[in-house]
């Protein structure tokens, strides 16, 4: 990419709110039900029915607003967004336009230079989801499943503050972490509970005026977002440098061909004719309600990360990794609570072997096979020198396979570290006696042979000798 171009990106994120019932009806919202078994008269758009707003979505939107330091509107208004599509039975989507429930928020990401960067959140508004159209295997027809119709969504709109695909992904991950911390969305991207549209444009570096943007629709994985934006940026720059012009349009990312394609043919008349929905009165939220919600706010990722750095003196990105999900952070703190070992050792095990094992077995932290108490038990045995870090890895695997606590495994497998100096000395003496040639070389000044001797001692002791002691005793004896 030419350095003379600046990329400008704004994201519209749709987070499905984790309610039991729909935003305007008492139908269930469970994922994966038989088609149309969760669609009632309100969701189907029958004449004469009226929507009634779910209190829980108001609470959840309020929580989100407070989490991003936004204004939660004391009065917000629902509007009709009119368009025709078979999966939208009423002929309009109930959304919010002029008076959304949340406005003027912000959050902070780390940019490419490692600096903190503020990203503005213009607004977040409540709306209902549409149904689903199925086009495969039905010949000349499309099939409509309206189970999803009326599912509550919070649409979170960013300022055009993002300057690269990487920043867009970092921002989206922050929002993803926040909604999951708050428990207002499960954030499941495969099931479509968390997806985004990206408004992408380019302009010559230094130019004030924004370039014409294209909107990339329905990006539902962090990897696709990054790829789709990069491909679109490349397309726009090539187009302009070849003397062409970017047209304002909606484009779809095709991951198989790794390209974006225009959807223009479908929507020549993009005129939604919004107006306030006469079926719904303005939503009024009291100061007391907002304060009651504020009182239930959990510690948020950024605050938790800062506290982890402060309280546990964790290095580098470790605090960030551990606080990326609330269950993981809780797990780590439960380990810390059950051990006197330095926090960094516990952090290394959670981020290293534990995360690795979860990843390998495709498990979430909620399904972890070693409890926090059990992991603390292992960390304790490293800390009190019962086992070395190397042996601990073996113990960890055995614990993961269900062989019991760290103490059980150490006992059953006879892995206790040898810290008895006389026992180690005996082995060292044997190694020195067995390798006269290397001893002579070492004494002639070939210092790095120390590794050879350590290896031999470890081999003899099946790795159970305390490495620090082995080193010291070897050096002492080889000197003489």
């Amino acid at each position, binding site marked *: 990419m030419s350095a003379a171009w600046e990329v400008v990106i704004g994201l519209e994120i749709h987070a499905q709110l984790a309610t039991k019932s729909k935003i305007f009806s008492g139908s269930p919202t469970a994922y994966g039900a038989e088609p149309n*078994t969760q669609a009632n008269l309100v969701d189907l758009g029958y004449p004469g029915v009226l929507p*009634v707003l779910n209190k829980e979505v108001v609470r959840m939107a309020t929580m989100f607003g407070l989490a991003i330091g936004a204004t939660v509107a004391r009065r917000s208004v629902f509007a009709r967004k009119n368009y025709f599509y078979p999966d939208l039975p009423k002929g309009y989507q109930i959304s919010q336009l002029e008076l959304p429930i949340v406005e003027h928020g912000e959050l902070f990401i780390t940019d490419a230079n490692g600096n903190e960067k503020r990203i503005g959140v213009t607004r977040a508004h409540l709306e209902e989801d549409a149904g689903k*159209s199925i086009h495969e295997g039905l010949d*000349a*027809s499309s099939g*409509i499943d309206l189970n999803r119709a009326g599912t509550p969504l919070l649409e979170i709109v960013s300022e055009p503050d993002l300057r690269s695909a990487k920043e867009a992904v970092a921002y989206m991950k922050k929002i993803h972490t926040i909604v999951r911390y708050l428990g207002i969305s499960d954030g499941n991207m495969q099931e479509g509970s968390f997806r985004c549209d990206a408004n992408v444009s380019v302009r010559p570096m230094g130019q004030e005026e924004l370039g014409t943007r294209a909107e990339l629709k329905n990006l539902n994985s962090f990897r696709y977002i990054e790829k789709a934006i990069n491909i679109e940026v490349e397309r726009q720059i090539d187009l302009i440098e070849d003397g062409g012009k970017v047209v304002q349009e909606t484009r779809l990312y095709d991951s198989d061909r790794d390209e974006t394609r225009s959807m223009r043919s479908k929507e020549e008349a993009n*005129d939604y004719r919004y107006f306030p929905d006469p079926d719904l009165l303005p939503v009024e939220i009291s100061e007391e309600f907002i304060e009651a919600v504020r009182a239930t706010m959990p510690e948020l990722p950024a605050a938790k990360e800062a506290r982890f750095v402060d309280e546990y003196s964790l290095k580098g990105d470790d605090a960030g990794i551990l606080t990326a999900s609330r269950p993981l952070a809780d797990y780590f703190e439960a380990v810390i609570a059950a051990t006197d070992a330095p926090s960094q050792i516990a952090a290394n095990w959670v981020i290293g072997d534990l995360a690795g094992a979860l990843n390998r077995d495709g498990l979430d932290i909620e399904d972890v096979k070693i409890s926090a108490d059990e992991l603390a038990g292992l960390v304790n045995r490293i800390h009190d020198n019962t086992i070395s870090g190397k042996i601990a890895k073996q113990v960890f695997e055995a614990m993961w396979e269900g062989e019991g606590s760290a103490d059980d495994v150490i006992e059953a497998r006879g892995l206790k570290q040898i810290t008895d100096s006389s026992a180690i000395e005996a082995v060292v003496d044997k190694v020195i006696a067995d390798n006269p040639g290397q001893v002579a070389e070492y004494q002639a000044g070939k210092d790095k042979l120390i590794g050879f001797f350590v290896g031999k001692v470890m081999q003899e002791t099946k790795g159970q000798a305390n490495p620090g002691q082995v080193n010291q005793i070897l050096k002492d004896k080889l000197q003489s």
Partner: protein
Amino acid sequence: MSLDKEQVHHIALLARLKLSDAEYAESVEKLSRIVDFVDQLSQADTTGVVPMAHPLDAAQRLRPDVVTETDNRDRYQENAPAVVDGLYLVPKVIE
């Protein structure tokens, strides 16, 4: 006439209405009268008046987040012209 046939054609398209020539003529005239009336309203001085979102001076009642609906798919689908495997069928909507 504040509206021309072109504009009414666009409105009809957005509303998915098919109008005959006679109906167009009539619609242009009737809709223009409505627009003219609204124009007349806009002459009123509304400085300092908060836009009204609803004629009732009341706030939205909220319902608790409880599932109250049961599955009545079979009954609802009796009204549908075509159904397969629980899906409502419509003419294919993508190429």
